[in-house]
């Protein structure tokens, strides 16, 4: 059920340079799943016209709370970052289809690969996979040391490699470099991040079962406006397009054209 609620801010912390962790309370938490996102109206009535899509990064059903981790990048996310405890924020969600947890069976190994602000949804995913008895490994890529976040949180769940593009923290380079170098073995791959990273993973592991979360500029966020479509492989005239907001954002690797 998609809800539009005024969620109450429980906590807002800057956990890295311009990276905020925002926990809110609302019934959206009751049905949210890892990999789903919410569409947030920032700035109230005076704020930007369009909602902002932000992934759900952790869920606490009992407390009716969920958390978003986002980068204050532009007008909307700056406004989001300015929310204080107790304030209300208008959130639509949960939206889209999350990661298929059932594709990783107990005892198997899952590799979770994230880049930058693509990392947040992997956290709840990792928690639920772990609960399910799946062994998780994380490879998380950042631009630079000052924006690294959640290393400890991920490490508590499984082996965690950190890379930075400029080498100021962890391994220097891209996540794929590390995966190959460390010869990480896995049964299922779950990823979220920049399109170049997703492409590299898709071509790097053509025979692996992999699930990739995509991003696109959105209008409605619910599947009505055709803003966020992508093409499906082997269908050049685009009859079999997919909408990232409602068919995705998570797709099986090879399903849609990256």
């Amino acid at each position, binding site marked *: *059920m*998609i809800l*539009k609620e005024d969620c109450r801010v429980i906590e807002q912390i800057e956990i890295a340079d311009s990276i905020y962790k925002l926990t809110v309370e609302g019934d959206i938490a009751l049905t949210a799943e890892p990999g789903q996102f919410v569409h947030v*109206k920032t700035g109230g009535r005076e704020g*930007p*016209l*369009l*909602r902002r899509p932000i992934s759900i990064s952790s869920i606490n059903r009992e407390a009716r709370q969920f958390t978003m981790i986002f980068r204050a990048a532009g007008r909307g996310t700056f406004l989001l970052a300015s929310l204080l405890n107790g304030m209300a924020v208008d959130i*639509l969600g949960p939206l889209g289809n999350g990661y298929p947890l059932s594709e990783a069976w107990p005892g198997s190994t899952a590799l979770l690969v994230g880049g930058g602000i693509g990392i947040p949804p992997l956290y709840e995913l990792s928690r639920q996979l772990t609960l399910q008895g799946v062994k998780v490994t994380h490879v998380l890529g950042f631009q630079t040391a000052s924006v690294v976040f959640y290393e400890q949180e991920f490490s508590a769940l499984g082996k965690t490699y950190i890379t930075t593009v400029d080498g100021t923290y962890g391994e220097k380079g891209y996540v794929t470099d590390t995966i190959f170098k460390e010869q990480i073995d896995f049964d299922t791959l779950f990823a979220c991040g920049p399109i170049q990273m997703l492409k590299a993973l898709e071509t790097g592991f053509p025979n692996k079962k992999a699930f990739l979360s995509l991003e*696109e*500029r*959105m*209008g*409605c*966020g*619910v*599947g*009505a*406006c*055709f*803003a*966020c*479509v*992508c*093409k499906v492989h082997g269908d050049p*005239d*685009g*009859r079999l*397009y997919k909408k990232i907001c*409602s068919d995705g954002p998570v797709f099986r690797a090879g399903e849609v054209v990256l």
Partner: protein
Amino acid sequence: MSMLDVTLPGLSLKNPVMPASGCFGFGREFSQLYDLNILGAIMIKAATAEPRFGNPTPRVAETPSGMLNAIGLQNPGFKEIMAQELPWLEQFNVPIIANVAGSTEEEYVEVARNISRAKNVSALELNVSCPNVKEGGIAFGTDPLTCQELTRKVKAVSAVPVYVKLSPNVTNIVDIALAAEAGGADGLTMINTLLGMRLDLATAKPVLGNTTGGLSGPAVKPVALRMVYEVSMKTTLPIIGMGGIHSAADVIEFFYAGASAVAIGTANFTDPFLCPGIIEELPVLLKQLGYEHILECKGRSWNHGRKPAYHRA
């Protein structure tokens, strides 16, 4: 006794509020959010003869109090719409207005002839104003003679009344409106989007995959109101007004300007529950302003004091 019922050619509306074409898909998504039966009507996404994928992404960009879109008339083609979407919509007791688009006269005629015969299509909206596809209609909406001719041909084959959707990207909107009227249109819908663009500061390139796009949202409301005002004084055709409507007060402004019904586009993205919200709020606001029926507001900006042209039965 309803304060909101409005009767227009082909359309018996319980209220004059409907989602605008392209902003509501074929209703499936919003039906998860609320009961579509409460809507006055639904304007479905444009239909063309063949399926169209549309433009490259990004297809939307935000602007001050507005947005640009360049979807490019993506749709599965009228056959698929008639096979899958319209039958699904039959479960609702809501008139459907089918938006008809094309690149050639023949395409418009083909789509109109067919889709107008769907069981639950009550009217056509002739989209001669989509700014987002090359050879995609806009020529039909900017030249009066072409518009008249197309309207005539579509009217000739349509089984239901035809509303012509006007483009604001013209020097003289009244000329186009009168051309549509001369071509036999039963009504007008206006406005479609204003052609605009944004450039990316870092790359210097257009933000939209299609370079330019259509501007909608509150930013364009003053332009839309002016056009509805100008046109409503000059034709007797009923007008379904749209462009930046975000509140019940905006709806009444469009009626004052001369509209007989309104459509809501972009605002569905800001607040997907806005249509039901406005429908609920309208009677309250009307009462507050001293009106007994919304049609008393119609054209009041220029026929002030005169008796409303419309009387309920």
